[in-house]
């Protein structure tokens, strides 16, 4: 036991004296939370657009002013010809162009009909849709202000209620995602690299002929990373609570316990990687391709799982982070209790057990 503690201390010093690493490991959650919380929004605003006004009359002037006044648009260019229009799109200067035909006001007043054309840069279809909707809304507003208010008969109104996330903030989804990424980084990648390093440098052989039991050595390596990830979990929860003001609806103790449990699952994954890989580069490649990419793509944090084709939906069940996401979402955001998350927890426990068994098996065969 004493030997074991000495080893843990050794690993602690190893980690702690590498200031760059410690700095990044603590800085990572902060940076991720800031980026996801403040920089990445699906909101559309200040979009650069151009106007091609072939009519130049009072009506088009008013509409242009109203478009410019909206916070969604920034008119950066007045275009004179169709040719110029194409060039502006190709240089990437604008996302939309509003084209008024000749004699806009004249036809509106005399035939009661006029047409506006919106040329969209549809490379991003969602943004193009949203921009077209906003512009249409502005023009419809102008139109109804022209004819004065009037109630239409037989009107169906709709009232909207947002459950769980009343302000429609984007921040709720990614908090568990950031947590999973940080845990993967600390528990799986760092741990597996540090174990494989002993193999690569040849120090593993020294340990194998020493009286310490190899499994204990491996566990000793995991302890500092586990503690570090515990600190990270707490800091992510605090950042999201105090800085992003994401409320924690459910039981805090349960939430923390589930997070720590997931850390153990990821540690088991790291162990598995280290038993398979024989160089640090391989360990790193496996962690990136086998852990990070699936976690980001298939866990539902960033891309909703139900939008995926069925084979990917089935595949996503193998990604531990997906179950973790369900758990955190249920507890933290919906405020549900153990009754709702025991199934997911059990699945994670099964996965952890499976990874542990395989990696210990593999580890033993290497000894012989």
């Amino acid at each position, binding site marked *: 036991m004493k030997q074991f503690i000495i080893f843990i201390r050794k690993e602690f010093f190893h980690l702690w004296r590498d200031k760059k690493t410690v700095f990044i490991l603590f800085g990572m959650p902060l940076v991720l939370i800031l980026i996801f919380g403040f920089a*990445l929004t699906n909101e559309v*605003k200040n979009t650069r657009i151009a106007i091609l006004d072939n009519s130049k009359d009072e009506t088009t002037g008013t509409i242009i002013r109203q478009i410019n006044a909206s916070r969604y648009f920034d008119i950066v260019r007045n275009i004179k010809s169709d040719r110029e229009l194409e060039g502006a*799109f190709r240089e990437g200067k604008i996302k939309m162009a509003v084209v008024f035909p000749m004699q806009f006001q004249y036809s509106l007043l005399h035939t009661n009909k006029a047409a506006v054309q919106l040329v969209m840069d549809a490379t991003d279809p*969602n943004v193009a849709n949203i921009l077209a909707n906003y512009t249409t809304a502005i*023009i419809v507003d102008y139109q109804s202000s022209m004819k004065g208010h009037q109630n239409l008969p037989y009107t169906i109104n709709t009232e909207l209620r947002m459950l769980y996330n009343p302000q429609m903030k984007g921040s709720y989804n990614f908090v568990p995602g950031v947590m999973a990424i940080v845990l993967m*980084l600390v528990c799986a990648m760092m741990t597996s690299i540090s174990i494989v*390093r002993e193999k690569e440098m040849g120090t593993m052989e020294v340990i194998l002929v020493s009286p310490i039991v190899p499994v204990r050595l491996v566990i000793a390596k995991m302890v500092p990373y586990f503690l570090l990830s515990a600190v990270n979990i707490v800091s992510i929860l605090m950042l999201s609570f105090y800085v992003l003001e994401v409320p924690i609806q459910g039981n805090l103790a349960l939430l923390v316990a589930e997070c720590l449990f997931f850390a153990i699952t990821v540690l088991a994954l790291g162990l598995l990687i280290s038993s398979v890989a024989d*160089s640090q580069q391989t360990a790193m490649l496996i962690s990136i391709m086998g852990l990070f990419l699936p976690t980001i793509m298939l866990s539902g944090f960033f891309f*909703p799982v139900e939008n*995926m084709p069925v084979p990917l939906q089935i595949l996503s069940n193998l990604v531990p982070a997906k179950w973790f996401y369900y758990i955190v979402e249920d507890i933290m955001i919906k405020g549900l209790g153990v009754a709702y998350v025991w199934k997911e927890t059990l699945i994670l426990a099964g996965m952890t057990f499976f990874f542990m068994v395989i990696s210990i098996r593999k580890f033993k065969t290497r000894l012989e």
Partner: protein
Amino acid sequence: MRVLKILLEKEFRQVLRNPAILRIIFMMPAIQLLIMPLAADYEVKNVKLCVVDFDRSAYSRELVNKITATSYFQLVDYTDSYNKALTYVENDQADLVLQIPAKFERQLIKEDKATLFMALNAINGVKANLGSAYLRTIIGDYNREVRTEWLQIPRFNPQPVIEVAAINWFNPYMNYRIFMVPGILVILVTMVGAFLSALNIVKEKEVGTIEQINVTPIKKYQFILGKLIPFWVLGLLTLTIGLAISYLVYDIAPVGNIFTIYFFAGVYLLAVLGLGLLVSTVSATQQQAMLLSFFMMTIFILLGGLYTSIESMPEWAQAFTKVNPVAYFIDVMRMVMLKGSTLWDIRFHLLTIFVFGIVLNSLAVWNYKKRS
């Protein structure tokens, strides 16, 4: 020149004999391009809808039929208990609840006005937004049908109407994959280049072989060039594989000139590899180099405008994208591949990245010390 040739021979042998590196060059494009565009599909379909109908009239049923006839919605249950519907939402079996109040039909006909209630699971903001917008459009359509049923619309319209028509350039079918694939190509080239080069010099340090190089007459710039060129070739190889996959699988061929893409990618790789080599000279162990480049890549990629547009970011994030090479390349890739931009159109991007490349590589050469 001879020294450089020998160094290159050594580096190429080392790379080609490392199965892990070869695997990454072929696997990464495959995994990312085959799975990512399918997974990262922000087009919203299959919104799971639960209808709570307190009215059970001909009108309410007609409305529900109209909603379920579209491909956007999937009816989970048609019930008359609001609590039951909420349980569906709690269990993630429903995203959206439409509540039709009692006497909906009567109110609509007698009082000219009726109200429907929607409750949506707003945790997934995009889905909630688009789902409710679709539902509103359908209800609006239905509303118009009801109106035409009861009213005679005069043929000549006495009120002025402005018609708004949108045409979608560059992606007429509004296919989300066309938007994603060029961006993913950039991520691919960046990841391969940055990670491989970051780990390279530091490995020589960790294993100790750098000492041997330090005592030879190899010049600093020769050493860095010897490290740079093989990864530059590998990066372009990855790009080629990626372009081939996007053509064969997604049928996306560049609208612009393919050599414009290669030319820009060549300059861009200089910058990314310079960054990787700089990381490599700064770090003492592979673990450090790995962590450092992972940290930087995460920030660069997240703020590169792959999923969310740069214009909607706050000022500080926008200022950062000015020094983010990934953001420039994503922009260029989309411009050339989808809009057919020419070298002249991307001249500013090109110049900026070129400057980055010079600065980063000089820093790497300067920071690599032959003394220990």
